[in-house]
Each structure stands twice: as structure tokens, then as C-alpha cells.
């Protein structure tokens, strides 16, 4: 929204305030740059101290100066892919339910509930994971421990849901009513309309939902640290989900508190942070461009 043009009778105060507000607007750019700068500043020494072949290795064993990032990266990948595999169908279905099927009173209950899910602290979800979900996983899978990739995946899926639901809802909402009317005029049922017309038309938005869901899941820290078991080993093989796994986020959170500032281990943890930053940066950039292309300004809800 643009203010209509006003005669430029600008006194110093108007000018001063406007500059302050512009500065506040620009501050976000400054903060992103600062984050990047400090990750680089604290991370780059690692590349001098640790040979690249070591960083690219398959073992993470900082006590012996072995800093292979592969198990951590794959660990993050495993739980993220698993989580999105669960939360995408569930989230899109819920968005369909809210947008197309549910009566008003149900919608009035559902929408704030989903907002509440987004607000539950991840440490509380992790706590419930330890107390309730992990024993269940152990019982059903027969694995020796309930703290496995599967446990982390299930909880992550739940935490990614609010993001996926709200963006999928936006996407469904932005499909023009006329598409639906046209389908009904051809005597399609409501479900045929949804399946053959609305969902395909909303696909770019749903792709955005997936991307931001991935960004959210890959960056989630406390929950996976508490329930995924934290074994830094390559998550390969068919039973990878039933074994403990360690993500990049959990590694930083678990180890940063105990390393000496300025040590090699410390620098490498910042490299892990840098990798996380760059991955989420690219995901968000891609998501932003799909949103900008659809002409939806600031992307409103998807930030919240």
C-alpha cells in the first residue's frame, strides 16, 4: 500500500523520522550479513587447521581430531526427508479439510489449534518424545533403544506441520473460484474438482510449502537432540530409521558448550553452522522466488 502523494513540505523532523524508519527497514539486510560474516569469521580457520579430506570423511570423532561431516549431514537429511514424507500428505490433507470441506465451526477450532502447535516449545515436544513416543517406538520396533531416527522423524514431522498447513492453505486459497465453478459446471464432484483441478493449480504453492517445511525440519535442534539418540555414525542400510542418528543441529548444540573457544573443534562447529546457514538460505531463496513469482508481496503468513 502506497501513501498517496503529499506535497513535499518536509520539515527536519519528518525527514529525521523517515530516515530512522528506513534504517529499521534496512536492518534486516544488516542482520543477515552480520550472521553470515560471523559464521565465516569463526568458521574459516577450520579450513586451515583441518585438511579437506578430513572434513569430507565419514567419521565424526572430535576427540581424535576426526571431523568428517558426512554422518551429520546425512543424519540431518535422513530425519528431514522422513519428516516431510509424513507431514506433506498429512499437512496438505489438513489444509484441504480446512479450506474446502470443514464446516465453519470446525475451522474455528482447527486454525487456532494449529497456531498452538507452532507455539509449543521444541524442548517440550522433545520431553514428550522421551517420555511417551520413544518407549512406544521401542516397543513396536523391537529396537534396543527408543531414541532412534524414527522417533526424531515422527516428532519433526509434527513440528513441520503448522508451516506446511498454513502455506498449503494459502496456496489452495489463491486458486481462483472460477476454476471450481468451471469444474462443477462440467458436473465434476467436489472431490474430482479438488483432485483434478484445485490441487494441480495449487502445486507451485505446495512446492513452496515443502521447501519451507524442509527448511524448518533441517534447522530444528532441541527435539532431535533429545530423542534421536545422537550417535554420529553413517545412517546407511535399511534399518537406519531404527538406529540412533545425529544431526548437524544437535551436534552444534551438544558440543559447543564444552569446547574451548578458538580451538579447532570450535571452528569446525561454526563450519557446521555455516553449512546449515547456506542450505537454509538457498531453500528460502528458492521458496521466496516461487512466492514472488506468484505476486504475493511479503509472503505474509509464511513468515509467521
Amino acid at each position, binding site marked *: *500500500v502506497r*501513501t*498517496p502523494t*503529499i506535497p513535499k513540505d518536509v520539515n527536519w523532523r*519528518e525527514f529525521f523520522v*523517515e530516515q530512522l524508519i*528506513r534504517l*529499521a*527497514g*534496512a*536492518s*534486516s539486510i544488516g542482520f*543477515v550479513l552480520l*550472521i553470515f560474516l*560471523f*559464521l565465516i569469521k569463526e568458521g574459516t580457520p577450520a579450513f586451515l587447521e583441518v585438511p579437506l579430506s578430513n572434513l569430507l570423511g565419514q567419521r565424526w570423532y572430535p576427540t581424535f581430531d576426526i571431523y568428517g561431516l558426512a554422518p551429520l549431514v546425512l543424519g540431518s537429511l535422513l530425519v528431514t526427508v522422513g519428516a516431510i514424507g509424513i507431514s506433506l*500428505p*498429512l499437512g496438505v*490433507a*489438513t489444509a*484441504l*479439510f480446512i479450506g474446502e*470441506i470443514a464446516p465453519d465451526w470446525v475451522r474455528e*477450532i*482447527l486454525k*487456532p*489449534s494449529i497456531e*498452538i502447535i507452532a*507455539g*509449543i*516449545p*521444541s*524442548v*517440550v*515436544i*522433545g*520431553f514428550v518424545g*522421551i517420555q511417551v513416543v520413544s518407549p512406544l517406538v521401542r516397543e513396536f520396533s523391537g529396537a534396543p533403544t527408543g531414541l532412534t531416527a524414527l522417533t526424531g522423524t515422527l516428532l519433526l514431522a*509434527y513440528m513441520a506441520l503448522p508451516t506446511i*498447513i498454513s502455506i498449503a492453505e494459502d496456496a489452495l486459497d489463491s486458486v481462483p473460484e472460477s476454476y471450481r465453478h468451471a469444474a462443477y459446471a462440467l458436473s465434476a*464432484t467436489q472431490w*474430482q474438482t*479438488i*483432485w483434478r483441478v484445485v490441487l494441480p493449480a495449487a502445486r507451485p504453492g505446495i512446492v513452496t510449502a515443502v521447501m519451507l517445511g524442509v527448511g524448518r525440519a533441517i*534447522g530444528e535442534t*532441541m527435539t532431535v537432540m533429545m530423542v534421536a539418540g545422537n550417535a554420529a555414525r553413517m545412517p546407511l542400510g535399511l534399518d537406519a530409521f531404527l538406529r540412533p542418528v545425529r544431526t548437524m*543441529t544437535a551436534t552444534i548444540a551438544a558440543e*559447543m*558448550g564444552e569446547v574451548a573457544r578458538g580451538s579447532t573443534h570450535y571452528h569446525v562447529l*561454526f563450519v557446521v553452522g555455516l553449512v546449515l*546457514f547456506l542450505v*537454509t*538460505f538457498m*531453500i*528460502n531463496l528458492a521458496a*521466496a522466488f516461487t512466492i514472488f513469482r506468484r505476486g504475493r508481496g511479503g509472503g*505474509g*503468513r509464511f*513468515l*509467521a
Partner: protein
Amino acid sequence: VNSSRYSAQKVAFGAISAAAISVVIPLVLVIAYIVAQGIGAMNWEFISSMPRNGMREGGVFPALVGTVWLTIGTALTSLPFGVGAGVYLAEYASDNWFTRTIRLAIINLAGVPSVVYGLFGLGLFVIFLRFGMSIVAGSLTLGIMTLPVIISTTEQALNAVPQSFRVVNASLGGTTWQGVRKVILPQALPGIMTGVILGLERAAGETAPILFTVAAFFLPRLPHSIFDQTMALPYHLFVISTQVPGMPIKIQYGTALVLMVFVLTMNLLATLIRRYYRRRRQW
């Protein structure tokens, strides 16, 4: 009428409804379970006393106070920048590369993992600016993390104010800033408050950004100044549920309950403000 088409619809809608229900049921169960298990630990002493005997007895008072301080600090950090940026985007910015860069920056701030905010806060505030692990460092870190939510909700709230308000302001000779300060901002205030509270709710429950910037494992006293470390509820729950052997389960659930109540109260407050003003507003 082909009835099989309708039976397909019935099946599909059944599945969709089941999916939606399966999203809400865990929420209800989690809240009910934590309340049921935690209520036994709940009494005034639990809220208002120091942890004792290696946190296995006593209460959560210092963690609760710490979280309140951090929430206030987060608000002080993120409000001026966040509301300012929201006002800029809604009322001043034109559609040019500068504005688009700001929007991209906000989107990326929103996507930075919380633990990376922790690293950033450690590098900039704790070490480089020599704040040490302190309430200032933690608040600034949480404040920057909360910015995107506050900016986007402020912008939305301002955009929702009808254009005619601005036209009338201009026709009466008001400048942009006069219009913003005396007309637009007051009208958008409830919306902004709702967004701010939801943003702070998120910050209050965060653990990863405070791990290396402020949170103390065990500190059985209140912080003396903003350059002091402090305990905080989310980190306290993490500590007692994973790091302390032989921790009575009742205290763990009690702490989870206090944190949930803290966060859900803010959520409820935001919802109430939204409901109340939506009914009252004239446009």
C-alpha cells in the same frame, strides 16, 4: 448420476477428515498429559522457590524469572527494529530493488535455524562485543530471531487499515509520518500487538539460541544485572530431562507444565486481543 463418483468422494473426504483429526489429537493429548502429570507438582512453593539438592527438590523460580527477563529483553530489542521495518515496508517503501532486498533478507532471517542464531550470538555478542554470557547477549540474539515475525505481522496489520484513512490524512494536510503516528498506527495497534505477542511466545520457548549466549545450567539465585547469566525455563527443562540422573519425574512434568502455561497464556492473550478488536473495529 454416477454413484461411484460419489462413493470415491466419500472415501477421499473420510481420509482427509481423518488426517485433519490426527493432527489435532496429539496436541490435545500432549496438553492433557502434561497437565495431568504435572499438576501434582504444582503449588506455590514450586513456582516461587529455588531448586535444591541438585535440582531434585524445590522449585523453578530462578528459571521462571530468567525467562520473564529474556522475554522483556527480546521485546525491547525486536520491537523498535521490527515495528520500524514493518512501517517502512507498508507505508514508505516503493517497489524497487532496495525493498525487494529487504524482503529477501527478512525471508532468510525467518529461515535461519535457531541454533545458528545461537552461534551468531556467541560470536558477536558474547565474544566480539564482550558481553559475556548474559541477559543482554541472549535478549539481542532472541530479538533478532524474532524480527521476521514482528515485521511481517506489523506490515499486515498496517496494510489492513483502509486506504481511505491515508487519503483523508493527506487531504487534511497531514504528512506521511503524522498520518502513520496519529491515524494508521493506532488503528493497526491490536494487530501489531497480536503479532508481537506470538513472536515473543516463540522466543520464550526457544532453547537453542540461549544455549551459548545466556543460559546457566544451575544458578540458584536471581540475576543481579543484565550482564549476568540466568537460568531459563526451556533450558531448565532440557537439563532436568536429559542431563541430571535420578531426576524425579514429577519435577520434570511440573517444569514442562509451567513452561506450557507460560507460553499458552501468551497465545491466549494474543487470541483474545484479536477477537476483541475484530469485533470492535469500525471498518
